[in-house]
């Protein structure tokens, strides 16, 4: 999303100089909201032109950085419209790395693995950084400050996301290693899978056992076996409220 609505959110609390908006954005929402001043002044200019914010204090001609801005009634309405607006859908990103792995083919599995390793290190470094920010938050003392907790939520969101990325990397590595060991069939131009010696016996046993179970499934009778005792009574004796569980 653009920073527009987040800036309106900040201005709902209190008017501010543009430079204050930039730092507060990060203070409230975390490092993923870092904006450069060029972008910021552009956004502020557009918002002022659209009547969402107005100058309330300051001097020095047309330069935005000399003025304090406040939200207008239109701005508050726009914020409310945005807040109430369309549901917040999940969006799954397209991942270039994943596409590379997908099309790497058996010859480039080692390179694909190396890319996963690099990606994993970067995620680990980013995670360490965000986790540090999160841990620097002081929530000691008698007051629980809403803004601190909400910032923590923002930072935790990044941590959780990065943890997911790390998990993905481990997962991808396992799968790539397994492929590299030649355990799967590739299209004809590629290597063939190793055939497991035991596969035949195992599927035979499966067929026999599962087939026997399936044959006994539709009826309520037990599997045909002379050694088996009489089947459990179907008509239950009712003993309401009885419970043998204690743990």
């Amino acid at each position, binding site marked *: 999303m653009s920073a527009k609505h987040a800036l309106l959110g900040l201005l709902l609390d209190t008017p501010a100089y543009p430079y204050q908006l930039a730092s507060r954005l990060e203070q409230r929402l975390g490092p993923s909201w870092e904006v450069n001043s060029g972008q910021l002044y552009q956004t502020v200019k557009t918002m002022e032109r659209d009547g969402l914010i107005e100058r309330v204090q300051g001097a020095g001609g047309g330069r935005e950085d000399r003025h304090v801005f406040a939200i207008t009634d239109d701005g508050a309405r726009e914020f409310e419209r945005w807040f109430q607006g369309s549901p917040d859908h999940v969006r799954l990103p397209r991942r270039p790395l994943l596409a590379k792995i997908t099309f790497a083919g058996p010859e480039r599995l080692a390179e694909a693995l190396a890319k996963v390793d690099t990606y994993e290190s970067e995620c680990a470094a980013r995670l360490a950084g965000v986790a540090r920010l999160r841990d620097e938050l002081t929530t000691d003392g008698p007051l629980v400050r809403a803004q601190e907790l909400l910032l923590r939520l923002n930072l935790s969101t990044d941590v959780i996301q990065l943890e997911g990325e790390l998990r993905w990397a481990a997962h991808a590595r396992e799968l790539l290693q397994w492929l590299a060991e030649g355990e799967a069939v590739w299209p004809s131009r590629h290597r063939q899978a190793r055939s497991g010696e035991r596969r035949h016996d195992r599927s035979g046993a499966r067929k026999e056992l599962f087939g026997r179970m399936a044959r006994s499934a539709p009826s309520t009778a037990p599997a045909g076996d002379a050694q088996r005792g009489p089947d459990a009574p179907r008509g239950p004796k009712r003993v309401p409220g009885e419970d043998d569980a*204690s*743990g």
Partner: protein
Amino acid sequence: MVERDDGDARTVTATTLERPQARALLELDSVSKRYESVSETIHAVEDVDMSVRERELVALLGPSGSGKTTLLLLIAGLLRADGGSVRFEGRDLASFTKSEALAYRRTKLGFVFQDFNLSAGLSAQENVCVPLLLRGVPHGEAHGRARASLAQVGLERRLTHTPDRLSGGEKQRVAIARALVGEPKLILADEATGSLDTETGDAVLELLAALPREHGAAVVLVTHDIRATRHADRVLQMRDGRLSELQ
């Protein structure tokens, strides 16, 4: 000096003199066991001599990591010594075939563990039956002997209880009944009172201490609980893989 407080004035030496016919059941002769990792070799058990006579109660003390459990595994034939010999009734365990080793554990030994090691889905009686059933004892006989064994540990009213409905002390008594039911020559108890409170632990110790007298089984009590020593005929101490006798 080991003191006995059971009102019996026998000393350690007198105990052995009193039963001159008691022969060595278990003999360890300069037994060693090393674990090797990439960087170092750990001598878990080093040059240990030890013997246990029939109907003897031996307490084996030592801090965790001192090699006590390794020693038990060696005695049980679950680990093979790197040097020296472990002999049971005169036969070297190293000469056992795999099935002889299994038969040795099933018929000559009984095990009691700190965490009881019971089957969760089975009743007390069934748990005690297990070693007999695995030996091929018919169901009727197995259940009869299990009942008798549970009665000997005072649990005749808990036959159908599954472990989740038993207290810690009761679970350990089921485990003792299970260790006893096969009429073993030697019972190996590994921290049997480790997860019990003092009072319950004392009761379990009493029970274990009575096994040589009442069931003719020798007992090796591995523990770091000094209370166990007051029941013992001999007290051995393990430290850094080496064994010494406490006088």
